[in-house]
């Protein structure tokens, strides 16, 4: 089976843009802020990372720049949504459109250009296993992404900081009455989300498919938003959801490798169709959403 080992070895990398962006959004939503501008933040991060790496500053600088660009754009969102108490949905859409515009503008002269990807690092012994061995041969960002997943899980679950973020998201009025700076916590959570979205975009544009094309994020930011719902705001479920989407988006290539003759537009739509189906399945369980959901999500806090 070429297909299986191909999907297994590639799905983690394919999952990274979803995973990183969704982890960031999860933290923002846990603090009570719905950021619909993820797609734009990923696009801006993607172009920033690509341009920096294209000009020879290396991947580390490129990812740093991408993260900062995403965070800067999310700062603008936070200012609108938190300080000015704008409608979070409208503000997210506005920032998303703005970010995608900036991405197209900055990427204009880099259309169809390429950069070198990242080398793969093997886990000794495990990488030599048949079929599944490819899963243990990944670039550094994948390993860091998995580490980040564990770290975010631990912070939300076991630290005071995580407790504060959850408290602010559940009941901002009570959190303020206890003396927590609700708006400041939300600013930080949103900017963390923007940073992660920027990194996710950079990964998509400079490692996963190291070639610049306008619109290359192609809805992955929106799928990341859906993933937070799929994961019912829990890090572990979100991680497996992201991997599922990594695998689905590889299906097109795997099918071709196996000579399966499926319509390529249908295969390209597959992640979107899966999103709609899974969203329907998860959302119809209202009790689950209510129990795990974030009570103040999307509601502007007026101190």
């Amino acid at each position: 089976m070429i297909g299986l080992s191909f999907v297994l070895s590639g799905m983690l990398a394919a999952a990274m843009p979803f995973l990183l962006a969704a982890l960031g959004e999860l933290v923002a939503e846990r603090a009570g802020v719905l950021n619909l501008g993820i797609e734009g933040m990923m696009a801006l991060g993607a172009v920033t990372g690509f341009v920096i790496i294209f000009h020879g500053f290396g991947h580390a600088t490129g990812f740093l720049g991408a993260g900062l660009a995403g965070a800067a754009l999310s700062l603008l969102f936070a200012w609108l949504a938190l300080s000015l108490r704008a409608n979070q949905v409208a503000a997210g859409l506005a920032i998303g459109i703005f970010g995608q515009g900036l991405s197209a503008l900055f990427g204009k002269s880099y259309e169809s250009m390429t950069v070198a990807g990242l080398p793969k690092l093997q886990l000794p012994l495990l990488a030599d296993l048949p079929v599944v061995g490819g899963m243990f041969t990944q670039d550094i960002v994948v390993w860091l992404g998995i580490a980040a997943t564990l770290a975010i899980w631990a912070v939300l679950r076991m630290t005071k900081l995580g407790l504060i973020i959850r408290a602010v998201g559940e009941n901002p009025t009570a959190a303020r009455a206890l003396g927590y700076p609700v708006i400041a916590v939300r600013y930080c959570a949103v900017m963390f989300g923007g940073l992660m979205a920027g990194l996710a975009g950079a990964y998509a544009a400079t490692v996963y498919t190291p070639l610049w094309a306008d619109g290359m994020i192609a809805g992955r930011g929106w799928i990341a938003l859906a993933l937070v719902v799929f994961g019912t705001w829990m890090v572990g479920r979100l991680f497996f959801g992201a991997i599922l989407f990594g695998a689905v988006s590889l299906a097109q290539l795997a099918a071709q490798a196996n000579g399966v003759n499926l319509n390529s537009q249908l295969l390209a739509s597959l992640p979107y169709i899966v999103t709609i189906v899974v969203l329907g399945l998860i959302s119809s369980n209202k009790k689950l959403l209510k129990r795990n959901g974030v009570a103040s999500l999307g509601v502007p806090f007026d101190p």
Partner: protein
Amino acid sequence: MPVPLLSIRGLSKSYGAVHANRGIDLTVEKGSIHAILGENGAGKSTLMKLIYGVESPDAGQVSWQGKPVRPTSPAEARKLGIGMVFQHFSLFETLTVVENISLIVPGRTAALVTRIRDLGREYGLEVDPRAHVHSLSVGERQRVEIIRCLMTDPDLLILDEPTSVLPQQSVARLFDTLRRLRDRGVSILFISHKLEEIRAICDHATILRDGAVTGTVDPRDHDATDLATMMIGRDMPALPPATAHKPGKVALELAGLDHTPDDPFGQPLSKVALRLHQGEVLGIAGVSGNGQAELARLISGEVTLPDHRAAEVLMLGQAAGDLGAAARRALGFAFVPEERLGRGAVPEMSLADNTLLTAHRAGLVRRGMIDRAREAQFTATCIRDFDVRTPGPRTEAGALSGGNLQKFIVGREIMLAPRLLFVSQPTWGVDIGAATAIRRRLVAMRDAGAAVLIISEEIEELFEICDRVQVLNAGRLSPSMKVRDIRVEDVGRHMIGAAEGGAA
């Protein structure tokens, strides 16, 4: 004379044109229980927020143990030694008790758990530290709040209307806790508008009216009438005594209704049975959170039952369990919900547009189009007849005071001439004048032959206007009791219920 624990001089705070506090003076001695007494809207909560650093004063001075201080956040107030228990709890439902406490108390979880247990034993505040807050009863939640404060070793504990959420028998237990605290040197600021309670437990009382101090007394030296006069500036208004009526046809009947709400944090209802006749007022007593919200939605039609259970709600002679809110209104039903802003009225819309919300069926809509002239006329009548104090019908609902908005909503529903009127918490947060007016209107509806159903936390209110009461506790409704035949304590016994009694 020893230095007082807390001394306040000339404290003022305004919100826009509203002077919530005007030149307040207050002195709290060490080891005393000091009452702040006043009507709703007299400025009690604002004063506490200023002391606790939630809000900042516009003018005035606060001294703590003789030194001038200016707490600008609750964290600073706690550092000084001030703790506060809020009226609407500031607990986080999805967190456990110990997680809630660790939000303001440093330390490892295991150590906190031990301390919570120790404090619980010492002061009669037992609660399971590992339980999630959403699984706790209202009384248990209050214990968590008090423990949370005590863990910061406060010299002053502020309690905002602590008894308003408690069943009567739990009040005695709370008072016992408070006395033990005082005996260990903790001062207590006790906010309330309940005169008998204050006379029972407080050493001093400062009385507020319209944001200013109208007196500082020893409450044990005065009777309730004196205190009330200081509080409201006039004699207590009284309703004409209810006259016995011969009840008419059945207007509403629930026959052993079971219901599990969609909300996992909601209170399931079990075998709820009631029967209400035309020309009768039935009151549902009990502390909020015992299924009041769920029952209200089932009766109003905001939550419906499946078709095959339609007969479990009989309304005005029809099986109505599967009917939505609009269909029930078409039968002659009207409803005033407990949440005025956002449910009973749309805050961003004008009063005129808010009449349309439910009064559209009174000829305000013709062939799908809104008749603006009739809408204006209806609104003007409602504002005049129900004494709604507002600049005009174009004012947004959100700009009205709680009492005036409630008069508007009650007026709108009464003008629809319902045969069955259902009012949830008719006078919550409403000043005494407006509350009396609203109660008069409800009794007048009854006298005109309508069936009136009332959910209220205020037992005194129910005794004033109801013919019969039933008590809702832990999702179960007690048998019906004739108000003429019982005393307040009988209702209180049902409010304890089996569940609360077991936990206590």
